[in-house]
């Protein structure tokens, strides 16, 4: 008895400490970013910060091309990965026979473990040449190539998490829907998917998170030219993302220089972007849940 009590005490304390430490780490990271990045706001006048030229070794610190680069690649990757990932998850969870499900799920999860450098090589050697010849653009190292490969990388994450969420929906929901005469598709679209909503949304968020944060692959396949987006045709031009910029330039900068500070400022901007994405997602889940509760009551 006594031993169990002691164990329980230790375990609860450990779990508590882990929970708090996650929050504390995020807080500390943010503080560190702020401390290292905020001097850039003073050192660089705002108009030149929001200009369209990024060439830090000659004191051009316009971050707009980098932000637009990250946005176009991430949105592109989302457009590729969400429909494909969700349909795959629905197929595996709802439609595929048991044996197919047992093969597909582990395969998809193996895909998630592919190192991004390998996918980058694949991008340089296979995807980029293919895109150049297929669309007749000057070079295959474009935002579109990056979006395509990032989308492919995000799919396993989305499939894996979304499939778990769909799988957790009680069988009785589907049986009830079928009993009411709903077709297979109506059951999936109107009952199972809405019931698994919060898990599916988490899956999408994790997928987008992977796309925003991915560095190595985009550095290898997007060409890294800091060009500001001008229109839809820019999708087939090289872009430079925020993550690739930090990764490529961090090693070179001298500690405490303007360039060093602005790289941290870019880090803060990335942090804020993913925070906004998460908040929007959370509020969507929250609002829909409230509506569901209202209907039920």
């Amino acid at each position, binding site marked *: 008895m006594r031993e169990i009590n002691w164990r329980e005490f230790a375990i609860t304390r450990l779990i508590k400490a882990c929970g708090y430490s996650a929050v504390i780490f995020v807080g500390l990271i943010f503080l560190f970013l702020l401390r290292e990045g905020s001097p850039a706001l003073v050192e660089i006048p705002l108009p030149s910060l929001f200009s369209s*030229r990024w060439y830090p070794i000659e004191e051009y610190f316009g971050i707009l091309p980098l932000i637009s680069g990250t946005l176009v690649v991430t949105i592109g990757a989302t457009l590729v990965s969400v429909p494909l990932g969700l349909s795959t998850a629905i197929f595996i969870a709802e439609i595929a026979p048991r044996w197919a499900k047992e093969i597909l799920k582990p395969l998809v999860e193996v895909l998630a473990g592919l190192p991004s450098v390998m996918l980058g090589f694949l991008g340089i050697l296979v995807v980029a040449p293919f895109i150049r010849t297929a669309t007749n653009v*000057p*070079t295959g190292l474009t935002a579109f190539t990056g979006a395509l490969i990032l989308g492919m990388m995000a799919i396993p994450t989305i499939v894996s998490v979304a499939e778990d969420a769909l799988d957790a929906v009680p069988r009785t929901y589907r049986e009830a829907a079928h009993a009411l005469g709903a077709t297979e598709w109506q059951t999936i679209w109107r009952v199972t998917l809405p019931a698994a909503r919060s898990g599916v949304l988490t899956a999408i968020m994790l997928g987008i998170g992977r796309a925003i944060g991915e560095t190595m692959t985009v550095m290898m396949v997007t060409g*890294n*030219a800091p060009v500001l987006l001008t229109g839809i045709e820019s999708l087939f031009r090289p872009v*430079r993302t925020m993550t690739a910029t930090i990764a490529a330039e961090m090693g070179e900068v001298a500690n405490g220089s303007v360039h060093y500070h602005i790289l941290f400022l870019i880090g803060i901007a990335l942090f804020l972007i993913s925070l906004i994405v998460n908040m929007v997602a959370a509020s969507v889940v929250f609002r829909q849940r409230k509506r569901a509760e209202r209907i039920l009551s």
Partner: protein
Amino acid sequence: MVEPCGKHLRMYSLLLLVCLLLSGCRRSQAEDLPDSSSVKTIENKGSDTIVNLALAWAEAYQEIHPEVRLSVTGGGSGTGLAALINGTVDIANASRRIKPEEQSQAEANGITPVEHIIARDAIAIIVNLDNPVNRLTIDQISDIYSGKINNWLEVGGEDRPIVRLSRETNSGTHVFFLEEVIRKGDKNDKTLFSTDTLLLPSSEGISAEIRQNPNAIGYDGLGYVTEDLKVIAVYSDTAEDFVIPSAETVDNQDYPIARDLYMYTAGEPTDEIKTYLNWILSSEAQMIVSALGFVPIAQ
């Protein structure tokens, strides 16, 4: 079900713990080793252009001097010099001279970088094998990279857009190219790379793109140029003709885009580092230079 699972988990975590402890053990031993058995480690970091050469030197040197351990890494000239300034390496490799601001940062940290010229290198201008263009003047190359020339037609090629490839800004080759080719050595010239220049993180990235893309133009150290790329002849004032880069044309100063390669030490080198740097200038070490496609420095 739960109990064996928990047992396994406990065993795994114990195993993990032991592994962690052991790995910790090994590291501290490695750090202690130089003191106890007098093996001296020389940390050598910097230019990706030099990294293969530095590795070849390190291998050859360790055979004749087993008491010295050389650790060589790349990352770019800026990376190596930053590490020297922060006091984490003994020798920084650089394919460009140290910048005044780096010099002052080093002095602020109490370090005086000392420069050693270790070899010479030509920057080859490379295009796809299918590109009919064989020769360019420095002015044409400058105009291509600054964005004034955008089609191969303007320099005697096919009607194709020009895709400009460059190394990242932390590369010494990038800075050298900007100063000596795009700005043609004029210190007051503020011309920049055209914004749509692709900045690729590695030499291999540049070669891979040029190999498959007939629109592309790039530059790289002569030692990195392979058979499946076409090297452009560049107009030289001294030879009054277009010159292909080679050890010979660099040596007699005919090829115009050549530079010295450097190693920087913190202060005048002493002991093992001094012996190593002296060995690098020996004819034996300079043979390795030519074997790797660089140009040895005259004795």
